[in-house]
């Protein structure tokens, strides 16, 4: 994994300049805690008219609509849209299976998280990080401000793949713990025999805007294996013997296809943003080409 000194090589200055021009997109509006730069479901004092309501004792008389009083002989005040900040939750699967590949899937995941986190922080959004293993193993509480860019990248640079995957537990745990929902981007390979649906549902119940970045290694997409092999599971260490011939490869590809189709269909059905990427795609290209218009604007 890239070390503190290597976090400087996460991105080139040109790409960072490109990221500065982007902003996060959310399909929902969330209540923020402080004034930000996006719409809030609460009524505030911006210039954008939102609604009327009956005058109540203590309301500011400057917001009484006298035209309505002239017609209806009743007092009403105008309501305006309030602008608040967005909380971005970056959840990175750091189980052992994410260490597979060269460079590893985790390498792609942390770089992607760093890119999204950078966009959020430079746009005064709050950005939080969660590292998923059996549960949320470690995290970074939501913070805002440019000053947290480098510490965030340092934090991500030190993440190592380890442990088994339990996406359900991790996501459910996170959904329960976090105070303010927002935009959540889960970066994972979804290789959890127990599934991920329950965890994702927990996030949806807390009204998160969920995006799933499904990571795959080229060797997983198109194995170059062949012959008499002893396969070792990266996470569990389980060993199984298998002769990989063309029929075995055909079966594998069929199963992989079903796995991917199922993930995509589930996300589509639950209005979850699904983004599949193979890790031989440069992170920069993925961020600019595929996430733009979906997570980034």
């Amino acid at each position, binding site marked *: 994994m890239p070390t503190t000194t290597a976090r400087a090589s996460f991105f080139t200055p040109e790409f960072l300049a490109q990221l500065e021009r982007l902003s996060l997109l959310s399909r929902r509006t969330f209540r923020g805690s402080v004034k930000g730069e996006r719409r809030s479901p609460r009524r505030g004092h911006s210039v954008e008219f939102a609604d009327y309501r009956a005058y109540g004792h203590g309301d500011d008389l400057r917001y009484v609509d006298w035209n309505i009083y002239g017609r209806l002989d009743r007092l009403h005040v105008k309501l305006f849209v309030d602008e608040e900040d967005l909380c971005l939750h970056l959840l990175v699967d750091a189980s052992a*299976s*994410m260490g*597979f*590949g060269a460079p590893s*899937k985790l390498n792609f995941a942390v770089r992607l998280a760093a890119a999204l986190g950078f966009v959020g922080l430079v746009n005064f959004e709050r950005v939080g990080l969660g590292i998923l293993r059996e549960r949320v193993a470690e995290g970074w509480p939501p913070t805002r401000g440019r000053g947290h860019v480098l510490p965030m990248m340092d934090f991500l640079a030190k993440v190592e793949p380890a442990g088994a995957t339990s996406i359900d537990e991790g996501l459910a745990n996170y959904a329960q713990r976090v105070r303010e929902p927002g935009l959540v981007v889960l970066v994972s*390979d979804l*290789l*959890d*025999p127990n599934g991920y649906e329950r965890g994702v549902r927990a996030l949806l119940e807390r009204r998160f805007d969920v995006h799933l970045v499904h990571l795959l*290694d080229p060797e*997983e997409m198109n*194995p*170059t*294996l*062949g*012959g*008499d*092999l*002893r*396969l*070792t*599971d*990266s*996470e*569990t260490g*389980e060993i*199984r*013997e*298998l*002769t*990989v*011939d*063309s*029929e*075995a*490869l*055909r*079966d*594998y590809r069929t*199963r*992989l296809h079903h*796995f991917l189709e199922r993930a995509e269909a589930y996300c589509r059905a639950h209005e979850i943003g699904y983004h599949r990427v193979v890790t031989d795609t440069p992170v920069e290209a993925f961020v600019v080409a595929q996430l733009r218009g979906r997570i980034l604007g």
Partner: protein
Amino acid sequence: MSFLSPLAFALFGLSLPLVLLYFLKVRRREKRVSSLMLWEAVLRDREASTFFQRLQRDPLLILQILALAALALALARPAVTVLGEGARKVVIVLDASASMKARDVSPSRFDVARAEAAALVRRLGEAAEVMVIEAGVQPTVSAALSRDHDRALGAIRASYARDLPNRLPEAVRTARALVGADPRAEIHVFTDGAYTLPKSLETSDPRVRWVSIGRRSNNVGITNLSVRKSYANSFEYQAFVSLVNYTPEAQTFDFSLEVDGRSLAEKSVTLEPSVRRSVVLPFTHNGGGAVAARLHINDDLASDNVAWAVLPPPRKIAVTLVSPGNLFLEKVLKTDPQVALDVKTPDQYQGGMGDADVVVIDTATPARVGAGRFVFVNTVPSDVPIEVLGRIEQPNIMDWDRNHPVMRHVEFAKVAIEDAMRLRPLSAGRPLVEAVGGPLIYALEEPDRKAIIVGFDLFKTDFPLRVAFPLILSNTLRWLHPAALDQSSLQVAAGQPILLPVAHGVTSGTVTTPSGRTVKAPITRGAISFTETDEVGLYTLSTARGDLRVAVNLMDADESNLEPRPLPQPSGPGPAASAAQPVQRELWAFFVGLAIALLLLEGILYWRRQSGGRMALPSGPGDRWALALRGALIVVLALTLARPALPRWVDRENVVFLLDLSDSVS
């Protein structure tokens, strides 16, 4: 179907270890994957399948067993008996003489003869027996009578023409002897007819069919080359060359004479058709060398366009004279220009040869002389197998052996001898001069000793005063020691054996032919012999004492005259076709082909399996070796279908069995 080698079926026993290996744990490569989750379905399917389901999915074991079965069957040499048409005995005689190298037909007469002989064999029915005889220095049966036509074709392909005079009648005689009186036998003689065929049983036998190859005679050749040393000066020589024009037109060409590559003479010669011309060319040369006479002409036969002669290097015979004092012997030996004389008194001589080539012992009686070359005058050492029984007073000379080299040009009639030893030889040899009572001069030849025994005192005879005395001494020295080689013994005609004496003590030697082949040459009784003089050029005889060159030339006017002459025509119709006969046909090639096909399929399936269906080079070294071994096995099996044969050089030895069938034997 029968099996000629049924024990080969034991090979099929290897199928048991094959099956056992299939059940053994396969050596697997370790591979780490991100998760077995996606492989789970595949693993489940594979583990659940039974042995036979696995076999169906992976038929390698079945294919291997089938290939093994096919190989075992092939090795067992299956054969079926079929009725073969054309049961005949056919003998093919190929004329391998020098004229068959002529290029009037392309590529050469012999190549055309080989092609026609091969075509004849291919036309024969399965039941026909074929024999191939090459008419070389001696007739050689290169393929014995059998129904294996491939062997006959191989013998025809391996035969070649040699620089030899015609020996066809012997070959035809051999063919007739081998087929006996079988009226169905046919003897096909492929020859150019460039010789006069004598009327004989061979030519009148109706079973002999003569196939003529050759169209014309367009050849100029050297039919003789000899070099003679001038008696006036030891450095002056004369070369005598005979040239003949066997073309229908006058020919103008260049002729050159050289010694050891140095040009001696070059001249342009014009010869009318059928004209022979002799050319005498004097030259000077110091020391030994090889003389080459060359015709620079593009004619049909190249073998007679060059002739060689060898000038023997000057060599002296080291002679040790052991004598109390004998002026006659000393003077004669000193005046011989080829003798280096060393004189010793009897006290100084302890026996043996020392560094001498010949030891002359006069009247001395050493205890023992040992092996070597000797002249004993008036003495017989104790270890020489000759008994002295007494003395003969005034012996009467009865006769002398005029044919022996020692007695060449010697007249012994009027020699007077006062008295001589009465000799009784106990070992191999021959008397050279005989008197009443025993030999006066005896030539002793033992395996390791040659000697001339003069049984009388030179001071008690007028023999030293006669011309015969220095002549006998000179002949004796040259008979005892090979230094006495004259040019004629260093030049033989092609086909004649080389037989040369070697120095005392030499027990082994080799001969290098003009084409560079080196052959061990036997040395028996002090002479080296070599009979395979079937190519013209210089032969080098190598022994521990040095090298000697011998020239072999064609020098045969009959062979140089390429004009094909009429050959005898068959007098009657050919032998009637005989009834079909049962013939055994072997089927091993079919089973080898089947094994190759099965192994090829097995190899492809193995390759596909180990590369995951991609047909790329397997990544594991073990898999690559397994694939390479399969490929090598297939290649080796494919090669067996070409029926390869390993050539080997053998020392030819002709063995003749003579069977006495007379009544007394039975």
